């Protein structure tokens, strides 16, 4: 299949320096369409910088980014989003003084060429998917932190993206919320490609088709959850230090 040969999102030699610090160092990365890929690594491994370059928030120092067969290295962020990427921030970033409905509406309204019914439908569907539909008229800033994270995910999926990038989505969620999040991600996978930066290893093991481990800005290993669990270098760099 062509999809297996052309990766959905890929990077070649992608690097980013901040002054003398090399945050991301020549990463070659490929994810086929429909895969759920977790990106893990110790703090400061360059995970957020890496996905920041994928979605256009951070300009690379060198290297290339390909998305759906197109070179998007120099494309501004808003055009990448319109091309079918969605991104949720590591630090919750919502419209705190607007209602949940307005938040999601802003995310999805450009997709439907002014078709009001479609906009309302997409807005409600996304809120239902994360379990916030009954709160849609509340002010977003009044929600608990965990619910704000879910709102951000709703904003992402309301865009029906081909590629969803989630930067530490379960940070601050309660255990029950994490369980429904895992289910949601599994449901979405297959339709869309998902990149998941995640510290909670249970979530990673339960959702990811494959895992890429970054360490000190470089790719340390990529493989199935079982491979990664068994990888000695990964254990030394990362898993050994936490309760995997």
């Amino acid at each position, binding site marked *: 299949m062509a999809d297996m040969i052309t990766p959905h999102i890929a990077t070649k030699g992608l690097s980013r320096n901040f002054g003398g610090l090399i945050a991301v160092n020549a990463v070659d990365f490929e994810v086929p369409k429909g895969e759920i890929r977790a990106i893990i690594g110790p703090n400061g491994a360059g995970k957020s910088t890496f996905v920041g370059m994928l*979605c256009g*928030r951070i300009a690379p120092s060198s290297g290339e980014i390909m998305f759906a067969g197109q070179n998007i290295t120099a494309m*501004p*962020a*808003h*055009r990448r*989003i*319109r091309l079918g990427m969605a*991104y949720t*921030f590591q630090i919750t*970033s*919502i*419209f*705190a*003084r*607007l209602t949940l409905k*307005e938040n999601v*509406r*802003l*995310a999805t*309204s*450009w997709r439907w060429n*002014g078709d009001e019914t479609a906009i309302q439908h997409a807005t409600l569907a996304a809120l239902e998917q994360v379990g916030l539909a009954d709160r849609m008229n509340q002010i977003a800033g009044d929600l608990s932190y965990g619910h704000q994270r879910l709102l951000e995910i709703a*904003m992402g999926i309301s*865009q029906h993206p081909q590629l969803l990038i989630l930067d530490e989505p379960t940070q601050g969620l309660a255990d029950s919320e994490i369980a429904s999040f895992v289910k949601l991600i599994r449901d979405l996978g297959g339709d869309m490609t998902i990149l998941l930066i995640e510290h909670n290893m249970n979530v990673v093991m339960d959702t990811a088709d494959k895992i890429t481990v970054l360490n000190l800005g470089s790719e340390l290993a990529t493989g199935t959850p079982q491979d990664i669990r068994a990888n000695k270098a990964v254990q030394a760099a990362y898993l050994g230090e936490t309760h995997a």
Partner: protein
Amino acid sequence: MSDSKKSVIFHLGFLGLLFLLQFLLPAYHHGNLARIMVLATYAMGYNILFGYTGLLSLGHAMFFAAGMYGMGLTMTHLGWTAGPAMVAGFLAGVLVSAGIGFLALRTSGVSFMIVTLMFAQAGFLTILYFGEWTRGDEGFVIQQADRVFAGIDLSDPTNRYLAALLLFGLCLMLTIRLMQSRFGHVLIAIRENEERTQMLGYHVHHHKWLAVIASGTMAAVAGAAYALLFGYAGATFASVQYSIFPLLWVLLGGAGTALGPFIGTLFMFYLIDLSSSLTTAYMLIAGVALVLLTLFLPQGLVGEWRRRVMPWLT
């Protein structure tokens, strides 16, 4: 009834009230209110950028003056009649705001404030430099014979009041329409969280530029109308003071509310008017009142009213 419909009806009702007031007010206040409506139109233009988009400009006098001189100079030196001269004022506003917006939006935050302030100063000095045509500080009078539009004498108080109301009403309803549109929602989103707005797929910079143009053009139209209705154009209107005024009016009345600019202008006008009839230290009274308002009604008069009573107001 939907919130946006309620808001439209409320504001139309308010315009109706202003229409009726002309029959009740004594001549002095009647004249004041016409002036306030034109100045409030200027403040509404300012509000599009400051209140709804969240960009603080300290140079809007340049747009007000662009309209005023676009109108006044073509009338005085080219002999244009009121209609074409108003169009010239409008076009001057579009051009100046598009150009200044293009340059100033390369900065943001405090730099944006300073850059707009500097551009406005440059505009002010340009008016003084070309004193031969603009008559600089002294300004020039627009002859009563020229202040006629479609056979209507705009120097007549009744006509002037109606013209001011028409201008104010059109700009008010236009602002509401704009802010209820998808474009307006994106401007509000930029004010609330610029980075998130971009990462939802919106060209933030382009939206900001269009906001500067809408804002600057409305300010320019107010400037042109001011010169036409009150018969005078002068460099004072391009000075930094006239850049600060709309900021104050909007803050007092309520940034990001459609009616806030009018209420703020009205309040400030009468605050100074009344306190100066009591004492020569009227700026002290005005100052204290302003400090108290900002302390206790940080969202402005209409902003607070919206928060407490009418959450559906645009």
